[in-house]
């Protein structure tokens, strides 16, 4: 206990004695934590985005013109029971025509020349995530075509393919990037602390000659490293919040996807803790290097 109080006093004494240098170190730590926070926010949102990708894929089942309302209901029921279907949406031929008119906008008067609605009723299917792969979709479409009342099945094969590819590649890449970033941040923090401690080499050597144990020598440095890291983390939290709000408010104007971006609250809380832990680990590495 005596020992701990000495370590704490010593740590805070030297933190205050060279407060500018220590503030600078904190800011360096903050910078590297901020970069990783920005990357984590980005990756988190990309993950969110890829999770919705399969939902963007739809398969359209066109009904034969002659199908009665009862058969339509029966077909919808059958489709709903398929284990690869996650949702259905019936679109009557009248709805389809209205939709088309809306799409054509200013030239929709073309359609007024028609005697009769030439479109078919259809059912839009959403598939379960795991079924949105090129081969699975192809098999499903063939199965559906053979069902009674079904006229034709339409889907964009390319979308099914890319959705799957994207999902897996984004997930893999996120993991790789996160690993690289953690490594870099730990490196930057530990080297910042190391540069700080390096100046103290002589001091450490003297204390050793006086008979101090490794723990006695390390303690103040670990506390210092922790405090520097902790403040770095707080600065980074502030930075990440600013980054998030500037993205969602200003930049979202021309990249609408940014508007749906989420700031994981955990990250803002975790940054100071991460800073503290990394500061302590960084000190440990650095003090270790000085061969106690």
């Amino acid at each position, binding site marked *: 206990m005596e020992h701990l109080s000495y370590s704490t006093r010593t740590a805070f004494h030297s933190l205050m004695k060279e407060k500018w240098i220590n503030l600078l170190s904190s800011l360096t730590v903050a910078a590297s934590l901020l970069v990783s926070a920005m990357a984590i926010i980005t990756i988190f949102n990309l993950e969110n985005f890829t999770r919705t990708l399969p939902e963007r894929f739809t398969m359209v089942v066109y009904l034969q013109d002659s199908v009665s309302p009862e058969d339509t209901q029966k077909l919808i029921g059958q489709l709903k029971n398929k284990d690869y279907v996650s949702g259905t949406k019936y679109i009557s031929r009248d709805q389809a025509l209205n939709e088309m008119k809306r799409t054509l906008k200013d030239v929709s008067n073309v359609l007024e020349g028609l005697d009769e609605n030439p479109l078919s009723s259809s059912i839009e299917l959403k598939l379960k995530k795991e079924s949105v792969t090129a081969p699975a979709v192809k098999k499903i479409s063939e199965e559906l075509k053979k069902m009674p009342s079904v006229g034709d099945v339409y889907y964009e094969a390319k979308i099914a393919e890319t959705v799957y590819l994207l999902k897996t590649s984004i997930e893999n890449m996120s993991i790789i990037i996160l690993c690289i970033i953690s490594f870099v941040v730990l490196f930057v923090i530990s080297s910042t602390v190391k540069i700080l401690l390096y100046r103290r080499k002589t001091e450490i050597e*003297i204390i050793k*000659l006086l008979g101090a144990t490794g723990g*006695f020598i390390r303690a103040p440095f670990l506390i210092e490293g922790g405090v520097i890291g902790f403040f770095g983390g707080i600065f980074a939290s502030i930075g990440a919040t600013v980054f998030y709000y500037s993205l969602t408010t200003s930049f979202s104007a021309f990249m609408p996807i940014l508007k749906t971006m989420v700031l994981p609250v955990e990250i803002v809380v975790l940054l100071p803790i991460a800073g503290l832990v990394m500061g302590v680990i960084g000190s440990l590495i650095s003090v270790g290097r000085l061969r106690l």
Partner: protein
Amino acid sequence: MISFQNATKYYENKPVLKNIDLSVSKGEMVFLTGPTGAGKSTLLKLLYASELPDEGEVTVGDFNIGRLRPAEIPLLRRSIGVVFQDFKLLENLTVYDNIALALRVRGRKEKDIKGLVLEILKNVHLRHKSDNYPLTLSGGEQQRVVIARAMVSEPSVLLADEPTGNLDPDTSKHVARLFYEANIHGTTILIATHNREMYKNTGKRVVRLENGVLLGEEIG
């Protein structure tokens, strides 16, 4: 308490200490002298394991310097007080904290520390400088802080390397008296010095080192 048996130490492949045989019994006070570069500081460094012997045996109390386990080094050093030739004061600590550090390292309680530090400061006539930082002290004042730090923990062995190099003759005599007092109270003391006044007419053993070789001894 202290013994060298055929100890040899090399720096950069050149022997700095050659086949040293020397023993200092418990409670003895011995002077080490010899020209500059003879190896006096190196001999002392072996005793507090700042350097390790390359050949032969060096022991201090129960510690065999050549075969210390890493965890034993702090224990050895805590049984010794050292007056370093180059002072080794911590610039960032006050005189008080520099001396207190020697007690803190030994796990002494803060409430005991204060009394001990102020007492020893009075003994070296530096009570009024306790809140100063080392760089604001004169050379001789710094040297006395180092002496105080070495003695404050009342170690069983005291090693002093040129402890009066920056002190005037009167202050040197006063410091010598402090050493004698400690010796009377049982401390084993080894002092490396060029200062003849320190050992003249003391009746203590004076060991002469030259070029890394012990040239025998006389009585001061």
